[in-house]
């Protein structure tokens, strides 16, 4: 289907300031969207309060508002732009594209919708409709929907007060429990509770931080394998998987804080196909008519049970990674789908002869490693959990997982040149060990069992200290395949070290 001709101007909301969980990936997506829509001849109106972005450079949009991203401010922009369009004698409508500016843009758009401003001014939302956003973001509604289409979800319940929270916990029946506040960014205010005291504390905080005072309490899937799928759909119901991503760190660590690998490495093709089918079923059921979504899955390593964790009905942090990992420009295509094109009508810039409806195929391995900044927050707890704490990430591409992992680790700007063996010391608390020292077993065990920023390096320490892959698996629940790959690196480190003597 051709592009819509009833649209004159498109209002894009940016993501605002860089915060943990919402970094410059949304400058990337917003810039792509501005370019794509201008290319199609639409007048682009942009609102973003972050001056450090490329998208707020005056040439990327026709109208650039560096103004606060609040519903009140956005409404002022809408009123002003409608007047301006009248002055220009514009033939066509003003529409709002809220799916490219992260959670901030989505929440602000939803506030405009709920407050009646969009209806009042006759502004249509494109890219995702309000009902689909609600279905994707309201955790209980989403879970009910998943069960109605025959997909499995973790046992859970939502609550709006501490009493309700306790009742849900009672129903699930055992600790640990995961607490996730509704409508917060990067899981702010969420956490894992191992006992009643912790549960009360996290639940209270979650209720306070959720703009709708709602939290979801879930059975723990700690130790399960975690996967993500980047899906796109057009208005003729064509669906494609852009990229599959596997989390190296199992469930319990926020994906933003986890090492992730694309494509998925440890599923059989059959398992992958089941997940692919499920992804399409999810995006259809939620009703994201055009654009991209990110869907997260967990798989129990003992019995293969697969559950759906959540979906983001918008361009997300993972979309940026998936775009860079595959070369497929998700944000650009999402913008074009939003104005009416279908996947088969959009050419792929890279190949020029294939359309965007071809699923990308990759013949290499991509590894993303998070970058932390705990040294800046010495009073805070450096344990990784379901609340994202990393401030950035590095990605590397190699022909094997081993090559891409080592490249990613030396990209981190932490002074290391790979997994180890680079002559740099290891600081653990107040102690300093030389690069090739064998670390005490108790420290290694602790650093493996409690997720932390340096865990991948402790896998090396563990292997060098004589831990078996099986022992490390029991402590970390990191898939044995990854551990075996790391073992190859560590074994070869010894080969190189021995060559020194000869």
């Amino acid at each position: 289907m051709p592009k819509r001709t009833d649209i004159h101007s498109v209002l894009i909301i940016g993501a605002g300031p860089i915060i943990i969980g919402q970094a410059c990936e949304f400058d990337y997506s917003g810039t792509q969207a501005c370019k794509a829509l201008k290319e199609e001849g639409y007048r682009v109106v942009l609102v973003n309060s972050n001056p450090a972005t490329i998208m707020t450079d005056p040439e990327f949009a026709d109208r650039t508002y560096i103004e606060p991203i609040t519903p009140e401010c956005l409404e002022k922009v809408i009123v002003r732009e409608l007047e301006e369009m009248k002055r220009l004698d514009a033939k066509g409508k003003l529409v709002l594209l809220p799916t490219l500016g992260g959670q901030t843009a989505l929440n602000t758009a939803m506030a405009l919708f709920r407050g009646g401003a969009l209806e009042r001014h006759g502004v249509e939302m494109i890219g995702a409709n309000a009902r689909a956003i609600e279905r994707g973001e309201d955790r209980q509604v989403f879970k009910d929907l998943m069960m109605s289409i025959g997909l499995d979800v973790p046992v859970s319940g939502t609550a709006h007060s501490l009493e309700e929270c306790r009742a849900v916990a009672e129903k699930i029946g055992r600790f640990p429990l995961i607490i996730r506040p509704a409508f917060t960014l990067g899981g702010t205010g969420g956490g894992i509770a191992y006992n009643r005291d912790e549960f009360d504390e996290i639940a209270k905080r979650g209720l306070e931080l959720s703009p709708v005072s709602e939290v979801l309490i879930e059975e723990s899937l700690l130790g399960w394998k975690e996967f993500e799928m980047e899906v796109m759909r057009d208005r003729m119901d064509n669906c494609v998987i852009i990229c599959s991503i596997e989390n190296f760190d199992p469930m319990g660590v926020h994906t933003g804080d986890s090492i992730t690998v694309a494509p998925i490495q440890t599923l059989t093709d059959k398992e992958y196909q089941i997940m692919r089918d499920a992804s399409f079923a999810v995006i259809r059921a939620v009703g994201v008519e055009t654009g991209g979504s990110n869907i997260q899955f967990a798989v129990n390593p003992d019995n293969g049970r697969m559950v759906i964790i959540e979906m983001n009905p918008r361009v997300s942090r993972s979309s940026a990674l998936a775009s860079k990992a595959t070369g497929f420009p998700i944000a650009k295509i999402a913008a074009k789908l939003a104005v009416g094109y279908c996947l088969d009508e959009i050419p792929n810039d890279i190949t020029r002869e294939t359309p965007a409806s071809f699923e990308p195929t990759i013949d290499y391995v991509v590894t993303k490693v998070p970058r932390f900044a705990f040294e800046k927050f010495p009073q805070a707890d450096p344990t990784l959990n379901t609340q994202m704490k990393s401030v950035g990430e590095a990605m590397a591409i190699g022909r094997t997982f081993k090559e891409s992992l080592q490249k990613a680790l030396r990209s981190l700007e932490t002074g290391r040149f790979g997994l180890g063996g680079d002559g740099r010391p290891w600081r653990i608390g107040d102690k300093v060990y030389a690069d090739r020292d064998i670390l005490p077993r108790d420290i290694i065990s602790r650093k493996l069992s409690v997720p932390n920023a340096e865990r991948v390096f402790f896998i090396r320490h563990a292997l060098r200290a004589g831990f078996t892959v099986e022992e490390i698996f029991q402590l970390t629940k990191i898939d044995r395949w990854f551990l075996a790959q790391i073992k190859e690196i560590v074994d070869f480190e010894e080969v190189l070290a021995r060559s020194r003597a000869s």
Partner: protein
Amino acid sequence: MNPELLAKAKSLGFSDQQIACLTGRKEEEVRALRKQYGLAPSYRLVDTCAAEFEAYTPYYYSSYDRGDDEVRSSDKRKVMILGGGPNRIGQGIEFDYCCVHAAFALKEDGFETLMVNSNPETVSTDYDTSDRLYFEPLTLEDVLNIYEREKCWGAIAQFGGQTPLNLALGLQKNGVNIIGTSPQDIEIAEDRKLFAAMLRKLAIPQPPNGIATSEAEALAVAKELGYPVLVRPSFVLGGRAMQIVYSDSDLQRYMRFAVEASPERPVLVDQFLEDATEVDVDCIADVGGCSRPGQGQIVIGALLEHIEFAGVHSGDAAMVLPPHTLSPKVVQVIRDYTHAMARELNVLGLMNVQYAVKGETVYVLEVNPRASRTVPFVSKAIGIPLAKLAAKVMAGRSLAELGFTKEVWPKNWAVKESVFPFNRFHGQDILLSPEMRSTGEVMGLDAELGIAYAKSQMAAGGPLPLSGRVFMSVSDAHKEDLVEIARQFAQLGFELIATSGTAAALENAGLKVERVFKLSAGRPNSLDLLKNREIQLVINTPTGQTPRADEVKIRTTAVYTNTPIMTTISGAKAALLGITALRNSGYGVKTLQEYHY
């Protein structure tokens, strides 16, 4: 070492650095050995189709799998732009912005641009930002491999923040043409001794300072300078481990636990200028591209006045552009110093200077002859793309040719506010310090200063309240200043709440104050009121150098309850200005295009 062993190591992703350490060689030796064996990475395409169709966008990664190299040849003059690597505190999107501009600018000028970066979240790693994209680590080894493979004409290391700058000297040593201000001149600005010598020559004052390689020396230096002193290790990034120290015991603690001082790595001790105003200057110069001294131009992009007192990291401070309290004389002195230093350092491209102004005296704190964090903000405030112009200047154009020869003094106010991740790090005190902790920034633009400030607060997620209750608890030193602020809040109809000490000071001045218990004295206390959302604004300045546990609780609770909080008197004054302006006239919205074109 035999070729097979080396090839196997490379295919497992081992860096030259690792191989060197493990086999008892130097990194250069491993590189030489690789070259001798003809072992270079092959560059492969990211093409969405596993090589099934031809790919037209040159997006590459390296591998040692000994497959075919897919780099296309080209005769154009190539410039490599080194990106900033992963985001971290102190190195964020601002540098990606600068790199993207460099790519656009040089493309316009007919160069073929190569981007090297490892950060997937960026615009710089979009395949259509540069002519060729290399998704690779920013290390000497990886960058040299690309430079040599592509036979580049030059490389830009001044736009990606500290990451590429750290590589500049090593790259130059290996034959890379680093364009722009020379790495040697950059070294003068970064080396403490060379820098001090330059300032002496130019008769530009810097705060009295000394160095210490031990605890005893540090104490002696501090005694000579007088407390408070600003201490920091000589090798730092982003103000890491920088502190303001007020006493011998604090200094001892710092020397024992915060740094490792040694003769090779001394600790720098500067006199701390209390209550000084800090000013950031971004300028652009083409002096370094001229053959004779005295030629070339230096143009100031902007002076940014910090709202918080000097000592707050410039990446964390709120700033106002143009300056609103500096005298014309001070502004002129700043201008003169900036010009003198840019000329002395043969700057070719961008330079950032940080000044502290105490009374009418201007001190230089730091000079960075490279793109700074504030470049994008300044570019948008004045309507001139500084990074783009700088890239063209670095590649040979003059400012006169580019038509940028006059300093712009904007007609509107632009306020930069920082955004912090404290809600992620429970228990962490939120006081601003020389240690940078913000992750991002916002801009408030308006014809009126108060509104611009109010917008910056709205955009940062802590909108100023227009009415309600203000809770005040400040140190003795600030009680006098607070009285006037409190009086104005009362006149605007706000109710004042305070704990006993602050309340007494306000009552003595004739103000009506509602008293609230200190945390240990009874209930309900200020925390209860905060949690019940009965306080709309907090003004809390630290009482001592080691903050009391009570204060930390108040500040962190304000963060969790999303209550706006001001931890400095200057911040409180700015808030007052903003609230007054909002109540008088409300605010409107306007596009950048309308502001500038």
